[in-house]
């Protein structure tokens, strides 16, 4: 087990990452797909608007990127703080 202070710092770095990623997650699904759709209605795409695209496809692509980016970032943090398995 790593010493307590480095574990705590690791956890804080993790929570910070999670918060940032959750903001992106929220904006690209609930934001562009639902709440902000009326604001994006001017941007046409394939017979409809950008909000519709985010709701039916764009959000899913963003989710994919987010998970792999998080995995990569955490692998790096694991090493930095010496807490890898």
């Amino acid at each position, binding site marked *: 087990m790593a010493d307590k202070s480095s574990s705590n710092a690791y956890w804080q770095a993790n929570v910070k990452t999670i918060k940032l990623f*959750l903001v992106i997650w929220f904006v690209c699904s609930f934001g562009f797909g*639902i709440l902000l759709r009326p604001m994006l209605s001017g941007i046409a795409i394939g017979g409809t608007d950008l909000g519709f695209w985010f709701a*039916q*496809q764009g*959000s*899913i*692509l963003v*989710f994919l990127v987010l998970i792999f980016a998080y995995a990569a970032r955490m*692998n790096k943090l694991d090493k930095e703080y010496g807490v890898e398995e």
Partner: protein
Amino acid sequence: MDQFTLNLLVVGATFALYIGIAIWARAGSTAEFYAAGRGVHPVLNGMATGADWMSAASFISMAGIIAFGGYDTSAYLMGWTGGYVLLAMLLAPYLRKFGKFTVPEFIGDRFYSQTARTVAVICLITASLTYVIGQMTGVGVAFSRFLEVDKATGLYIGAAMVFMYAVLGGMKGITYTQVAQYVVLIIAYTIPAVFISLNLTGNALPPLGLFSEAKSTGMPILETLNGMMHELGFGSYTDQKDTTLNMFLFTVSLMIGTAGLPHVIVRFFTVPTVKDARSSAGWALVFIALLYLTAPAVGAMARMNLISTFYPNGLDGAALSLAEIETGTDAKGNNVTWVKNWEQTGLLKFDDKNGDGLIQYVASKDANELDVNRDIMVLANPEIAQLPGWVIALVAAGGLAAALSTAAGLLMAISSAVSHDLIKSQINPGISEKGELMAARVSMGVAIAIATYLGLNPPGFAAQTVALAFGLAAASIFPALMMGIFSKRINNKGAVAGMVAGLLVTVVYIFLHKGWFFIPDTNSFSDADPLLLSIKSTSFGSVGALINFVVAYVVSNATEDTPAEIQELVESIRVPKGAGAAVDH
């Protein structure tokens, strides 16, 4: 060869494959039965999670619901994929580090309370059983058409199949079986979609086809569809009709339900390391996204084809006539036998109200003469689009693979909760390994019997029933897991009070709208006119989750602090270092 024989051959061949794999990988010990000795590679685990995850709701039901709901149903697409982001960041790595077999085990240990563990078992069984009912609905629909038996018989055959390989294989059998099932279901889903997209737009990739121009009009597909729907009095396909509040809450409910469903979480117990748990969630979503990016195209194009079928002479010309349905050929020489075939199952109904010999499909309730069950759209899609017989048979096999694989995973979660978390840890700790396996199998059988019985009269279309299960998981399990990892302050009393409050409020709200214990006609409200604001019963899980969080926080802060050893446990699951193999206790 006729369609019936072809269906039997293709479905039979895939079933033989699954059962063969299950027997080959038969579980020997309890550890293998539950978690496959943790020897599963992240990519394979991702594929198996994909099969586990994509059930009759995703495969058979969802695109049909999208076809009829348009933009509003985007909640299904975002909800059932966005949850994986939460799973990967908020739950999976820490639960893997914790290193036990089941979700109630984590809740029992983290909240140092057998009561918490028992409450978690009850939450798990409530959500999973509701989910299995939805699967049974899908199995019934698929068999009733393709084996040309009635819906009840289809249900019984499906239930027997699930029981056989879930009992024989355990988790390991299921993992490899599910890899095979994933391959079958994704091929079955995408091939007809590619054909249809090529037919309508000339683009072979359905997700791009959805935003391409229709060959028939030279305008984008969605604009063409909007125009057709306007002319028949339906609202625009791409417009929002639901309230923003309900759509928002529904998406939240599906997302956090995804992260709280025990049969998906258990998947992340089966990877070798914490690192693998994070990437497994990503791989799972890759394989899931292949279907979810295709589904909106399938939905919109199926709706277009459905309208074109019933207006063979254009929207201004004569609608499809009863005589054409009877002979199976329309005025243009297209094969429309599917209308009659599906009518025989009772899932498609038409009624020539105005007596003109034609079936008018319009928005107005009084004038509309066609009623199509949402759950048949994906299965009927290749027939509607005039695709060859082997594609139709393949879709049948894919639909059954989706329904059976998820049902098996859920039954595993239910049976391990009963045998491991109730019997072994509380009722009879001295039970032998053999006895535990037997208890797991018996509880599986009982769960199937209940789900089959309730599946005969389901509370909604397959995806809607499944959405209710997500609401239940969202309101009960997800908050407890998340607080258990991210807060040291939440104690046993807070967690139990939170779970009980979240589950009870959500169950009561659902029963008020869908009937008590899903028994028809015992409901006091309906989703068309719900009790609270515009919140439908399928969306209420997010409200239940909020109640769970608040109650747990308030009760915990009003009672004593968590013991030091629990605070240490929480600290240890937060770092990957020291993750070993699973330990039984």
